[in-house]
């Protein structure tokens, strides 16, 4: 994997960061390359962005892989660090890349406040429904019934819908795609780079090591069948929608903001 990546993205990747520590099949790798493709699509240089991340596997996407300025921070706080970076040097782009545990659980407060404040950064949450790095504990995003290290008989707590959460907090750019929706994900990240306020993208990722292994035979807990687009969802009953994850770009309620 390492060699192929380095040949494909010589401008974007640091050779000294390889071999990568990502497990085979980790969804964070296609997310990483989707980010590179979005920059290429926009004709932007990675170097003009400061990449900020927290703690966990997803936080290792930019640090140490990206050939750019990276700030690998404390658990849950990357958005707060990024707020300082952006305010102090508004001319440079700032992108946060972190996991669901980092951004939505321990760091949930910073997430909703950045959305409310409309801090002009792009925040990509790699949501793999689990704490991967620490061995697979239940997360605030783990679907009901899923088996984790700390819910051996199935998760009983309803998960967050991160997009709804961030929309309710006031964000005007909110989107969700599976890392397997490659074209859509790339186009959405590219669009987020043009957005002037806070842009939130939930990238549904895969953790074969800590999540898929326990939840479906042959490491297939998450497949494309799990997802429907916003358009498809409109024609579906609540019952049909229940096990599905809706993807696309969610419209903000423009009446909410008092500008």
């Amino acid at each position, binding site marked *: 994997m390492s060699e192929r990546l380095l040949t494909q993205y010589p401008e974007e990747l640091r050779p000294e960061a390889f071999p990568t520590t990502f497990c085979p099949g980790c969804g964070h790798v296609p997310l990483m390359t989707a980010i590179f493709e979005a920059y290429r699509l926009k004709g932007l240089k990675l170097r003009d962005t400061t990449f900020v991340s927290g703690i966990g596997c997803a936080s290792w996407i930019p*640090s*140490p892989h990206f050939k750019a300025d*990276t*700030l*690998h*921070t*404390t658990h849950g706080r990357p958005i707060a660090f990024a707020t*300082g970076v952006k305010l102090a040097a508004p001319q440079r782009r700032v992108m946060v890349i972190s996991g669901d545990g980092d951004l939505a659980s321990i760091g949930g407060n*910073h997430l909703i406040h950045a959305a409310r404040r409309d801090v002009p950064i792009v925040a990509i949450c790699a949501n793999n429904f689990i704490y991967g790095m620490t061995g697979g504990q239940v997360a605030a995003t783990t679907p009901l019934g899923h088996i984790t290290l700390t819910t051996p008989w199935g998760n009983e707590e309803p998960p967050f819908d991160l997009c709804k959460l961030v929309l309710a907090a006031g964000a005007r750019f909110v989107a969700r795609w599976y890392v397997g929706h490659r074209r859509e994900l790339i186009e959405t990240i590219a669009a987020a780079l043009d957005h002037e306020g806070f842009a939130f993208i939930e990238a549904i990722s895969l953790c074969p090591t800590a999540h898929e292994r326990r939840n479906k035979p042959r490491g297939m807990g998450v497949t494309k069948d799990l997802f429907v687009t916003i358009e498809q969802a409109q024609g579906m009953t609540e019952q049909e929608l229940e096990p599905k994850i809706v993807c696309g770009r969610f419209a903000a309620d423009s009446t909410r903001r008092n500008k």
Partner: protein
Amino acid sequence: MSIRATKQIENSPLPGGPAFIQGNEAIADAAVIAGCRFFAGYPITPSSEIMRRMIERFHTLDGRFVQMEDELGSIAAVIGAAWTGAKAMTATSGPGLSLMIENLGYATMTETPLLLVNVQRVGPSTGQATRPAQGDVMQARWGGHGGFPCIALAPSSVQELIDFTIRAFNLAEAFRTPVLLMADEIVGHLRENCVFPEQVEIWQRYYAPGEPPFDTDHPSLVPSMPKFGDGEDLLITGSTHDARGLRMASSAEVQARVSWRLHEKFERGRDEIVRTQHFGEAQPKLLLVSYGGSARAARQALTRLLDQGRDAGLLKLDTLWPFPEQQLQAAAAKADQVLVVEANCGQIVLEVERLLRNGPRVTAHLRHDGEAITPSEVLAAAEAL
């Protein structure tokens, strides 16, 4: 040892000369004089006036201010801003310091210059928000996990709040480290005469393009500090890292080097960092040791002791950390009695006992009821020895 920072005399952006001003407001004014242009904070008594004053100052000086959602976020934003090249600060009190300490450790590990003002109030926990104490001085030194050193200064007057704030920013830049200004409610809310400088010596962090940002052979052990956008592809991490910032999750050699250098750079910088003031007899039989707001009472008590003809002196600790070890040992060389005066249940006295073991008898006059220590109490405690 020479300081690894560029030094420059600069005109103050504020009018110089005499002023009559509140301590907290003086901190804010001194910060902008020192070049601070970024402030992130969260309201907390008794430090909130600092934030209010910064907003006013930044309005005309083009600084950036953000009131964050909590103290964890405040210091995080400050660290982020510091890496854009800004001089940045936050201000809080005990409960806020507790919340900031994880990221204080991060700032130490990533060698990020910043100022953290702690206007101490009596605790533990919420305690009494408007009442003074000095209960956080050991927390400043030992509060963070992993055990990291720090620079902490303790001002006793509004004038010292001005001078120490400017000095704190300079030390932060020179040593690439967070500096704690350990004020207390007494000095924070005090109004008194002071003089603002017309010109100040400003130190700027050292930067040499291409030099590794996280290690150096320079005797100061302070590496070059680039900022975002310098084209250095910065790898900043709180994980153990090599000279270029690359995470080294299991190398004992790299871990040992990081731990050693983070401590050793302050040891080598002691002459620049450690400041004390001495009043009364140089090497007295009765030595008072105090700092911050409490040192005001100790100093008045000393005047009365000297009037009585006692062989007495006061060592005022302007730097708390690294601890003024040699200064204490020199001042106590001929002492029979050492009396530590502090507003807590006994913190700096432990350090004094440690350094003077086998020497004079060390006792403490302590108060932790949210009231200021008075000169007559100190006098009584000294007379009772």
